[in-house]
């Protein structure tokens, strides 16, 4: 027993001594909690064709999200878990069948070989697209068609090289979309070129090719935002996804524009205008959506209130009116409260 205790004390003191020599950041704990009320103008929850904000006339839950990060020397890790409908059954994948478990948002390790070159391995939020699962990362509370139809997360290994503050390049190999372990092997390659041509303007050109939704396919994506003045910001997302087997439905193309204007210190008004086309596949005809979402962000400390009105249109009538008949238009109002810590 004495020997064991001595060994433990020796190990502990050695670790302590090592810790003094290697720069270590404190453990970062952050996260968010969100809840919402939504009212569908046709009183039909099936009119929600994009992710999350699904319930009608209900005060419903989003998710609680908890993230841990620690950096010691050149090595760091991030672990982020979410619980609640947005982070469970409505996210892909759900850790246990039945939609009653949790979703891993991020679980990866990173090593900075130099100030310019780093490598990351694990399960990460996708590098494709403008919007993300966490409501803290989005301006609008509802999500775009581009987000819903694209990848949510990618597991893989990636290398990033920063040429300067204005240019960096990432390349990696990944599993198929949204899975903790590969079902078709490490079968996708992806890359991201980041350019920041002027201060305030950042553009990401992304590509991912390999196993994904609907089999094997290639997605090319442009995500950019420009803080033009202190009050005005403009964002743009455009993407094209083609499934290799053209008879399989799921290929799409679309673009969304995100102008935002700060009307006061704590209040920003923003619009999302989106065009999204599901491509023809075999007997399934092409169909196109347009959507306009008007959103306000009202901030007080860590809390953000998000009132939002959203109108969707598709001439192929995928929506329902009050009597349950097929309709070309859908509309909803929602009020969300998001607390970030």
């Amino acid at each position, binding site marked *: 027993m004495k020997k064991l205790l001595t060994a433990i004390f020796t190990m502990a003191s050695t670790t302590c001594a090592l810790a003094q020599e290697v720069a270590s950041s404190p453990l970062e704990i*952050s996260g968010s909690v969100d809840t919402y009320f939504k009212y569908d103008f046709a009183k039909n929850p099936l009119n929600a064709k994009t992710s999350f904000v699904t319930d009608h006339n209900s005060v419903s839950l989003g998710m609680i999200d908890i993230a841990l990060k620690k950096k010691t020397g050149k090595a760091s890790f991030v672990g982020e878990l979410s619980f609640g409908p947005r982070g469970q059954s409505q996210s892909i994948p759900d850790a246990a069948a039945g939609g009653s478990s949790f979703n891993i948002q991020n679980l990866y390790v990173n090593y900075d070989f130099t100030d310019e070159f780093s490598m990351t391995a694990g399960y990460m939020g*996708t590098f494709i697209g403008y919007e993300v699962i966490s409501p803290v*990362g989005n301006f609008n509370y509802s999500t775009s068609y581009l987000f819903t139809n694209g990848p949510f997360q990618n597991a893989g290994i990636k290398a990033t090289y920063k040429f300067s503050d204005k240019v960096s390049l990432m390349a990696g190999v990944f599993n198929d979309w949204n899975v903790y372990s590969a079902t078709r092997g490490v079968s996708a390659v992806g890359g991201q070129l980041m350019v920041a041509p002027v201060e305030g303007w950042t553009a990401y050109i992304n590509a991912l090719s390999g196993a994904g939704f609907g089999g094997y396919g290639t997605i090319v994506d442009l995500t950019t935002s420009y803080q033009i003045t202190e009050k005005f910001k403009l964002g743009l997302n455009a993407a094209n996804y083609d499934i290799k087997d053209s008879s399989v439905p799921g290929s799409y193309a679309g673009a969304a524009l995100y102008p935002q204007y700060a009307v*006061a210190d704590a209040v920003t008004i923003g619009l999302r205008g989106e065009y999204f086309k599901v491509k023809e596949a075999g007997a399934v005809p092409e169909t196109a959506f347009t959507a306009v979402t008007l959103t306000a962000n009202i901030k007080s400390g860590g809390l953000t209130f998000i009132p939002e009105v959203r109108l969707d249109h598709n001439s192929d009538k995928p929506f329902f009116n009050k009597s349950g008949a097929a309709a070309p238009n859908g509309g909803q109002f929602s009020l969300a409260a998001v607390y970030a*810590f």
Partner: protein
Amino acid sequence: MKYILFGFLAIFSVKLSAQQKQFSKDDNGKFIYYQVVDSQLVSKDTLLQRARSFVNVVYKKSMKPEGSTDSSVLAKGTMVIDKTILVASHPSGEVSYNFVFEARQGKYRFWLTDMLFIPYQRDRYGNFVPATTIGVPLERTPGKLGAGAWKDILNSTYNKVEKFGDEFKKYLATNRVEKTKKNAETISTKKW
């Protein structure tokens, strides 16, 4: 019981005094952290050399030299401001500043001013990154909704700047060459 009350009073006083720390304003109405330091034992040239070394070596990652004369050093820098929840914390933003150092025989002065705050937000990978590229002057008066959060930012910034100032003063007062030699001393077990 008396001791408990005294303890509470002492803690409360310390907390109050911590809250009262705030930036002074300069001639242009901007926040400034200004220090004049008496330094009779270190020559003007050595002070300048150490100030340059502090900017170019010690704070290489967060400071950028902007100019230097035979009596001054100018630089721009940023410092990360943390948000603390109990024992854990995470970055809440960064403050950029202009740094000016001037030396004379027997004394020197330095100040930080033109402070701009850029809030951080968590990105898709769980890292905290700047939410915008345009900073807000720390002197602004926030609206009612953001007043509490802004006060926390001012307090955190003051504490960071004060810590930076202390570190700078300590660096300028320390002879690194002698210290390195002292650290390299070896101990022989052959003699008592």
